[in-house]
């Protein structure tokens, strides 16, 4: 069935709330307003105000409330209107949710989900255009997923809600309106499993989140020039699907890592480390990374375009690792 990314997330929430009455949704504007991006459409009328809960503007507070509720056996889904606002709540995400099981000697699992849009949209400027996956993936105790398609959005969110660990779901603001085929029925995507979204044998493009759309566009364009690329969608950045990365690179012998965030200590650095450790003898060229410019996101449209990773930059990187002229 063809649905939008937004509706796919909505289906996931509805199905999991029907399946398990321990699941509840909490956040700013999630109930009466049905979510800033309408992801929770219809849920208040279906499940009532005890399970779809509007909060004051208090990210740290309701993230912590979710942790407390998880400790008495509930499975909270906490919506951040934007992961940029979640910075205020990181003490609860990092110091409480991610560490509670460990610090309680295994006594208190925190089966909860923190979700909301991450990364740049259009001209939202420096404070509202940031990709947070490398920050969050750094933390032992958290799992981090970055769905790029409606099918993955539904399948990963459902798996995240069922997981017994705190799971961070980084959605894409620019993805909510995108459409795609979502399998009927109880569609689950396992956490920690990458997916080859396009097959080729000349070079691997390894990416995640909304960069998958750029990578597929690049694959189409390169195909018209006779260059066939693997597009590997990590889907989950922690735990990382190392076998999927090494299988692709061993086949193509070349790799470009495409990531939305900054270069310094980014997800791409971890991928490159994995490749050099596991596939050193398979490589025919250094691995290159495509990422955001090392600046806060500019507000000016032309500067924003220049700062973001895009198809042209990715094509140039692929051709460079293939030693062909751009």
């Amino acid at each position: 069935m063809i649905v939008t990314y937004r509706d796919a997330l909505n289906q996931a929430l509805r199905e999991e709330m029907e399946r398990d009455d321990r699941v509840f949704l909490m956040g700013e504007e999630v109930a009466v307003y049905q979510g800033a991006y309408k992801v929770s459409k219809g849920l208040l009328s279906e499940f009532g105000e005890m399970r779809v809960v509007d909060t004051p503007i208090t990210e740290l507070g309701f993230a912590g409330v979710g942790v407390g509720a998880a400790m008495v056996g509930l499975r909270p889904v906490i919506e951040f209107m934007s992961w940029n606002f979640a910075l205020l709540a990181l003490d609860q995400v990092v110091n409480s949710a991610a560490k509670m099981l460990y610090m309680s000697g295994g006594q208190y699992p925190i089966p909860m989900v923190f979700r909301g849009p991450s990364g740049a949209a259009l001209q939202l400027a420096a404070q509202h255009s940031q990709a947070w996956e490398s920050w969050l993936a750094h933390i032992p105790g958290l799992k981090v997923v970055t769905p790029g398609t409606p099918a993955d959005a539904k399948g990963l969110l459902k798996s995240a809600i069922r997981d017994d660990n705190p799971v961070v779901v980084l959605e894409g603001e620019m993805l909510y309106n995108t459409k795609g085929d979502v399998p009927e029925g109880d569609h689950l995507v396992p956490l920690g499993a990458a997916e080859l979204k396009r097959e080729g044998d000349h070079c691997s493009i390894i990416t995640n989140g909304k960069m998958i759309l750029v990578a597929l566009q690049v694959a189409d364009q390169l195909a018209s020039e006779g260059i066939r690329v693997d597009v590997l969608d990590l889907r989950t950045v922690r735990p990382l699907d190392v076998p999927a990365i090494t299988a692709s690179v061993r086949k193509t012998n070349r790799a470009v890592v495409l990531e939305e965030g900054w270069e310094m200590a980014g997800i791409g650095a971890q991928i490159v480390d994995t490749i050099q450790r596991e596939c050193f003898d398979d490589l025919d060229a250094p691995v290159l990374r495509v990422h955001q410019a090392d600046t806060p996101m500019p507000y000016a449209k032309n500067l924003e375009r220049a700062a973001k990773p895009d198809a042209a930059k990715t094509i140039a990187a692929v051709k460079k690792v293939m030693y062909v002229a751009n």
Partner: protein
Amino acid sequence: MSTPVISQFPYRGDPVAPVRLLEVDGTLTGGGGSVPPMDDEQMLSALWLMMLSRAFDDKGTSLQRQGRFGTFSAVRGQEASVVGSALALDPARDWIVPQYRELPALVNHGLPLESFILYFSGHPAGGYIPEGVRLLPIQISIAAQLPHAVGLAWGLRLQGLDAVVLVYFGDGASSEGDFHEACNLAGVVKAPVIFFLQNNGWAISTPRSRQTAARTFAERAPGYGFDGVVVDGNDLLAVYAATRAAVERARAGGGPTLIESQTYRLGAHNTADDPTRYVAEEVLDSWRDRDPILRVQRYLAACGRWNESIAAKAQEEISQTIDAAFAAARAVAPPTAEDLFLHTYAELTERQARQLREYEMPATGPANG
């Protein structure tokens, strides 16, 4: 006049003067005819917990100096505040969300003393709360437990339970954003939470006067839509009565209460701190006179329920209790390399399994060896 003193709460009198029921000399504030909210037997049990706490403080501090305990925070001076509040709860249904300075409350609520010993010995098993004991683990991150308490109360209500949650924190923690966000949320959803603020005068070396310009901490509560009350935190009876009233109100659906328990830290913030650099000796002396344990002992002595031989017997029992707990803690096997990785996630990850193979752990020894 023998009006039950519990009817004084919620307190509508002077918002600044702390409520007191038991004077420093051990006499009842209301005079000989007033009825204390605890009977003599309850007071003896409370006193035993307070004395256990004091004895454990000495032991813990000494063990930290020997390198056998990690950084440790003593309760000294705050025993009435901790014990009086904990005794107002029902361990069979109510929850305690601690900070890190509430040992006797945790013991009364069902935590084995050896768990506490394991925790401060650095053993991972020390964080484990036995099944059926309604406690969250000790919280080191200042004020982070406040939103947890609201969530716990929310979750219990969602499950249809009539449980009440009491959360401990200090005057320093009240300056964190967590305090504001937790109080505001609790007020909005009328969560059955008691915010129990132990104003012990100090946040490490930062004095109470640098935490807020407000006359009292309790006065902030009306801003969140619920009541605040100031009690003499070195008065077991006042703390107990105020907390009982708050528990009953929360259980009846009346929402949260903020209790400011005015007490005084008679020792260091923790074993890494040296308060002689910032607390004047004469100030300490004035608080030593108001020692919460002495106050209860004076009252019970006047009732003929306390004397030197009873005190000696209690001390002996307490020593034996502590020694038995240390023996039980010593019997727990030391942590292994697997314990290093266990419980990071609900399951061991592939990355952790690889690192576990790569790590070489020294031969087993004590957690703090």
